[in-house]
């Protein structure tokens, strides 16, 4: 591996070739020559002339050749390490010499050149000379010419553009001073291939193009030009390009694809005419534009289109200019919301321009199409101060921010969420970044407000992807489950797939890896989706329940009954049972006649309790192991038959038989983990043993049940009654018998309590546990519904945070199912402050005018533009503020009440359009 110096020296030699060739084509005198008055524009003219004669081939050809040659230079290898050096003052900008061995740092009180050596930066030259500090040296930007190692330009905060010639023998290297800008100059930029052309962009809204062989600017471009039109710009007092040049350029137009040609030609004609007018000095009469010019934040010559440059503005616009046509820009579009701080042309791709803005975004635009097309968008965490494409990596760019965030990021624009690399060396905001060599992607230089200059090596960068957690899990609305995990993990566990995905189907998506991408694979995951079985219905019960439950507005007993009925009709008998129990507990016994109780169970027999048992058990048994609707409906059918029966014992037996004889295979019931859990749920709430759920095995569940059955001080005979089926259950050795048992025993207990008339407070703990149980199960709907229905009775037992959590979960679910009305009702009924204030947020309703489709911002009901009322009632001819109903056939409508009333009497549209409206 050769030393940097020698190899790069050789490369330099070769690199210079095209430049030389270029110079020879230009008949112009050297910069040292004094400009003779006769040919004011001779230098630039000669150049354009020449370019014109073999245009576009020459310019393009030369550039292509150059890039090829410099690519060849890339063969030499730069060496170095990650290092930094302390500067005396904060840096505002940096720029690299084309030999990749020197870097210039400029700031308010620093202007130095450093040599980049193997191990360190070495200060080579201090360009701030002279005793008196001058604002001309307070640099906002600095740029090093990419063809001439001796040429630099700086932009000063007081509006001066200074050029520096390192070849000057004196200590003071200052070459020329341009004081044409009236405000701070934000950016300077050399032409990539032309030795003498410098462009500047300033706060005063103007861009100026300087020929370094002349004392003042060649042309001025105004950000307002497009709006102003050719005549105004001439009057606004800029130096126009002489007609001679313009005429020549006119013929050049064929070489430019941008912009419609006719248009361009006519403007040029206008412009020529306007030169006949005397130029007004920039005086008081120059009109309102002067104050409104938007400051220019960045200017960049296109690397591949000889005449093109881009400029970015404080108001979010980006303009594309042809250097020969200062009267109007070729194209303008709004790129960002707020100032566009920076832009950078893609070094290889002709049409790509990256822009960065205060809105924290980096956007990549394709400028080759007729309208600039946004190709990529990267969202960063802070405003983007600088953006620089990474050499040799087509999709990579580096960014830094001017506020809050001190790091430098390198993004792959195709992966806009995680930066590909991150440099964290700086302690204050980074103000300048530059790739050390135009064909070496591994060295990045940066200057910062923390007064330091850094060289970053790509291999030392921290890679956020490494810290990323590429696992994710999400439930779909209808019970689908998607998860993403590292591919290695998925592969390892795929053996278990068939086991979990019994009747569900995993679908795999795998991203194809791009081998060219250095970080691919580090954070890539495989995505698997498990769908619920088609036709399984999934969450239908949830929607139905939500819609049909009654939560308020009626006595408690009625609410409970209603909800129990709803739950039962949906086949959710455990829930139904719970509602019934709640009614028993909380409604004073005097108010609830036994007959009513029985009725609620759907049976008018003399013995209510056993019936309830039977009902309960019948329903749960099938519900347990079944996951499909088929099974469920079968269970329903069975419970229906049971309901018609009158004897409890009979039912129990029948149930036993049925279970044994059912077409659900016994081993399935036993083997299915979920089924077993379900049994436990059944046990758990009704026995009020919240500590139970750890027990997963049915064998353990049995003894537990014994204990519970024993504890309540119920009458002996009831307990006996409860015991007998239990025994039979254990003998049968079928898991599905468990609930039979539990419901029996519990009901007996509650019956006993009911008899002895315990106050509802006694059940507080029980009910609380029941709510927790449901919530834990994922049935937050039940928890919230009960909470609302019982209101004060239970609220005190449950801590605020839990309640809030339940409410928000339920509301979230409701909104996912678009049950807006229900969700709103729940919000309204909730007592938690955090929840009820949900209704107070974003209460604004934005309306668009029905005629011009514009938002009606200032006044709600009348459009500012077309001065019409938005929605008039066809009946009363007043503005409808609120519910508006309209006919989908003729689109007339009005107040709901009015239309309803109208349509009672007539079937024709009230607007008189003759349409036969229908109200359904």
């Amino acid at each position, binding site marked *: 591996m050769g030393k940097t110096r020698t190899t790069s020296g050789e490369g330099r030699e070769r690199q210079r070739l095209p430049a030389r060739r270029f110079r020879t084509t230009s008949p112009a005198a050297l910069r040292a020559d004094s400009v003779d008055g006769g040919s004011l524009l001779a230098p630039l003219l000669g150049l354009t002339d020449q370019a014109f004669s073999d245009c576009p081939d020459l310019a393009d050809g030369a550039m292509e050749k150059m890039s090829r040659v410099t690519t060849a230079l890339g063969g030499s290898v730069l060496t170095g390490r990650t290092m930094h050096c302390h500067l005396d003052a*904060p840096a505002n900008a940096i720029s690299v010499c084309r030999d990749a061995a020197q870097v210039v740092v400029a700031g*308010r009180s620093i202007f130095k050149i450093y040599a980049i050596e193997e191990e360190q930066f070495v200060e080579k030259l201090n360009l701030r000379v002279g005793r*008196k*500090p*001058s*604002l*001309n040296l*307070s640099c*906002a930007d600095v740029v090093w010419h990419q063809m001439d190692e001796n040429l630099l330009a700086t932009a*000063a*905060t*007081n*509006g001066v553009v200074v050029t520096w010639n390192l070849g000057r023998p004196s200590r003071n290297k200052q070459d020329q001073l341009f*004081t044409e800008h*009236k*405000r*701070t100059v934000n950016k300077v930029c050399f032409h990539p291939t032309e030795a003498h052309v410098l462009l500047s962009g300033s*706060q005063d809204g103007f861009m100026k193009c300087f020929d370094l062989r002349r004392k003042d600017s060649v042309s001025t471009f105004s950000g307002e030009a497009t709006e102003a039109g050719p005549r105004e710009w001439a009057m606004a007092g800029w130096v126009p390009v002489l007609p001679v040049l313009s005429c020549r350029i006119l013929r050049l137009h064929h070489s430019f694809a941008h912009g419609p040609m006719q248009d361009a030609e006519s403007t040029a004609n206008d412009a020529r005419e306007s030169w006949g007018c005397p130029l007004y*000095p*920039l*005086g*008081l*009469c*120059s*009109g*309102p534009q*002067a*104050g*409104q010019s938007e400051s220019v934040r960045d200017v960049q010559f296109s690397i591949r289109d000889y005449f093109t440059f881009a400029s970015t503005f*404080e108001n979010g616009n980006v303009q594309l200019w042809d250097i020969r046509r200062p009267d109007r820009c070729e194209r303008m579009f709004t790129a960002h919301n*707020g*100032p566009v*701080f920076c832009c950078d042309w893609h070094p290889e791709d002709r049409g790509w321009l990256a822009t960065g803005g*205060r809105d924290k975004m980096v956007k990549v635009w394709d400028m080759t199409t007729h309208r600039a097309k946004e190709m990529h968008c990267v969202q960063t965490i*802070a*405003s983007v*101060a600088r953006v620089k494409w990474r050499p040799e990596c087509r999709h990579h760019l580096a960014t830094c921010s*001017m*506020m*809050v965030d*001190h790091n430098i990021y390198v993004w792959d624009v195709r992966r806009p969420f995680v930066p590909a690399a991150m440099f964290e060396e700086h*302690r*204050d*905001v980074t103000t300048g970044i530059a790739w050390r060599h135009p064909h070496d992607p591994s060295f990045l230089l940066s200057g910062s407000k923390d007064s330091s200059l850094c060289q970053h090596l790509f291999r030392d960068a921290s890679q956020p992807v490494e810290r990323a957690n590429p696992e994710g899990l999400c439930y779909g609305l209808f019970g689908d489950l998607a998860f993403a995990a590292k591919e290695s993990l998925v592969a390892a566990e795929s053996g278990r797939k068939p086991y979990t995905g019994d009747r569900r189907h995993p679908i795999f998506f795998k991203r194809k890896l791009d081998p060219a991408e250095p970080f691919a694979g580090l954070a890539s995951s495989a995505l698997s989706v498990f769908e619920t079985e088609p036709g399984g219905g999934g969450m239908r019960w949830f929607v139905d329940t939500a819609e049909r439950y009654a939560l308020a507005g009626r006595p408690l007993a009625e609410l409970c009954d209603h909800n129990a009925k709803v739950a039962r009709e949906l086949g959710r008998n455990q829930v139904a049972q719970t509602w019934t129990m709640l009614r028993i507990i909380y409604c004073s016994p005097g108010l609830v006649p036994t007959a009513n109780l029985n009725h609620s169970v759907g049976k008018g027999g003399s013995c209510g309790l056993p019936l309830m048992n039977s009902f309960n058990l019948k329903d749960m048994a099938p519900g347990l192991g079944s996951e499909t609707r088929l099974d469920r409906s079968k269970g329903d059918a069975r419970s229906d038959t049971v309901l018609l029966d009158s004897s409890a014992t009979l039912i129990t037996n029948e149930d036993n038989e049925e279970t044994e004889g059912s077409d659900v295979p016994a081993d399935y019931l036993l083997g299915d983990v979920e089924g077993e859990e379900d049994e436990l749920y059944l046990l758990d709430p009704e026995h009020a043993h919240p500590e139970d759920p750890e027990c997963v095995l049915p064998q353990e569940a049995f003894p537990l049940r014994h204990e519970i059955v024993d504890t309540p001080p119920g009458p002996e005979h009831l307990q006996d009654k409860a015991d007998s089926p239990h025994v039979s259950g254990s003998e049968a050795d079928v898991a599905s018998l468990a609930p039979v048992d539990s419901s029996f025993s519990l009901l007996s207990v509650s019956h006993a309590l009911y008899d002895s008339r315990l106050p509802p407070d006694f059940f507080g703990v029980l009910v609380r546990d029941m709510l927790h149980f449901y919530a834990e199960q994922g049935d937050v709907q039940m928890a919230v519904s009960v909470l609302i229905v019982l209101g004060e009775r239970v609220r005190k037992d449950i801590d605020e945070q839990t309640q809030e959590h339940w409410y928000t979960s339920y509301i979230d679910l409701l909104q996912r199912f678009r049950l807006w009305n229900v969700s709103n009702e729940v919000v309204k009924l909730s007592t938690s402050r955090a929840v009820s204030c949900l209704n107070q*947020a974003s209460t604004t309703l934005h309306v668009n005018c029905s005629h011009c489709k514009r938002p009606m911002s*200032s*006044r709600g009901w009348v459009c500012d533009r077309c001065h019409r009322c938005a929605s008039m009632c066809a009946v009363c001819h007043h503005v409808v503020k609120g519910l508006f109903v309209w006919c989908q056939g003729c689109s007339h409508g009005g107040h709901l009440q009015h239309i309803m009333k109208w349509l009672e009497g007539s079937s024709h549209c009230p607007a008189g359009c003759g349409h036969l409206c229908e109200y359904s």
Partner: protein
Amino acid sequence: GGRDQDEELGIRIPRPLGQGPSRFIPEKEILQVGSEDAQMHALFADSFAALGRLDNITLVMVFHPQYLESFLKTQHYLLQMDGPLPLHYRHYIGIMAAARHQCSYLVNLHVNDFLHVGGDPKWLNGLENAPQKLQNLGELNKVLAHRPWLITKEHIEGLLKAEEHSWSLAELVHAVVLLTHYHSLASFTFGCGISPEIHCDGGHTFRPPSVSNYCICDITNGNHSVDEMPVNSAENVSVSDSFFEVEALMEKMRQLQECRDEEEASQEEMASRFEIEKRESMFVFSSDDEEVTPARAVSRHFEDTSYGYKDFSRHGMHVPTFRVQDYCWEDHGYSLVNRLYPDVGQLIDEKFHIAYNLTYNTMAMHKDVDTSMLRRAIWNYIHCMFGIRYDDYDYGEINQLLDRSFKVYIKTVVCTPEKVTKRMYDSFWRQFKHSEKVHVNLLLIEARMQAELLYALRAITRYMT
């Protein structure tokens, strides 16, 4: 008959005092409610919907509806929309800020609002009755109002690291924006001589009608004649004089415009011009020390008269130079505010833009005038008083364009608004319209707000890095 009945019921009927929304601007010059155009009407409607009132500030600001719209939107967002601080805190901070300048008008308005949103009336007995957290803000309020350049990151750290009384960064930014907003608004209130609202102290009287009829007619008529006669006569006498003023100003602007490019001052000259302007601005003060309007009960509780701008200037303390090219609102301040208090950065940014760029291209009786130079001079002069320097501005222009009486007015409105008198208001730019003087006030308050914000936000940035 009705009045008799009310009196029998013991109801005292308040009667309005004063002659309209502003003490400085004759009522007939101010837009009458009912005669506004559609845009203004919409603004009034918005303002009424947001605040439940149409206050005198709105009635005066409506001279410039474009600005008023942005102003109301921002204020509404700060006080009523989503934000890190609870509603009563926001109004209380408004009271604290307005009380720094003994602005009883704003204090009264916000005392009502504070109580309305459920604030604890005890807090109104003084800052020491408010929670510790708000008390901690007192120091920042004081420094921000009078010497914002003294704010350091230690101030910020003190607020953010006070254990259970700590402010979060988002809360602090909200508070800082509120403080600066109300400091500036106090400037506007005094600068335009806003009259007290009828429902507030000083806005009405309970004198018996017979007596008050007599008194008010007498006093107000007398006042009117006293106020207007001398002005008129002064105008008559010096009409040519003041006409000449405008002409001279325009001539100066023209000259500056033309010779700007030719005569280039040296760097040292430019630097010293800024320093001179900064130093001189310390001594620009009205010679007549008229007594201040008596402070209202509430604002008295918040006073700390030991600390004010004037004290400082007498001691001749040095104001360090703040270079706007190193920390400016557009690049830095905006990003910080929007990061910590989303959307507000955008709103304030718009407001600054509108205020800075607002122009009708008129100057007194002249039309089609480019006033950008004059507006920039005013803006930069205010920032200069706060030590904020623009590298690309020639501070010599200020001396050319702003005469002494105007400087006195600017200085007083921005630094010690409570000392503004009608005489000051009348004595600058005599030929200019009232709407133009209100326009000047808008520039003053926005420039002041931006200056305070820049210092506060820079300290926060320094704390964060």
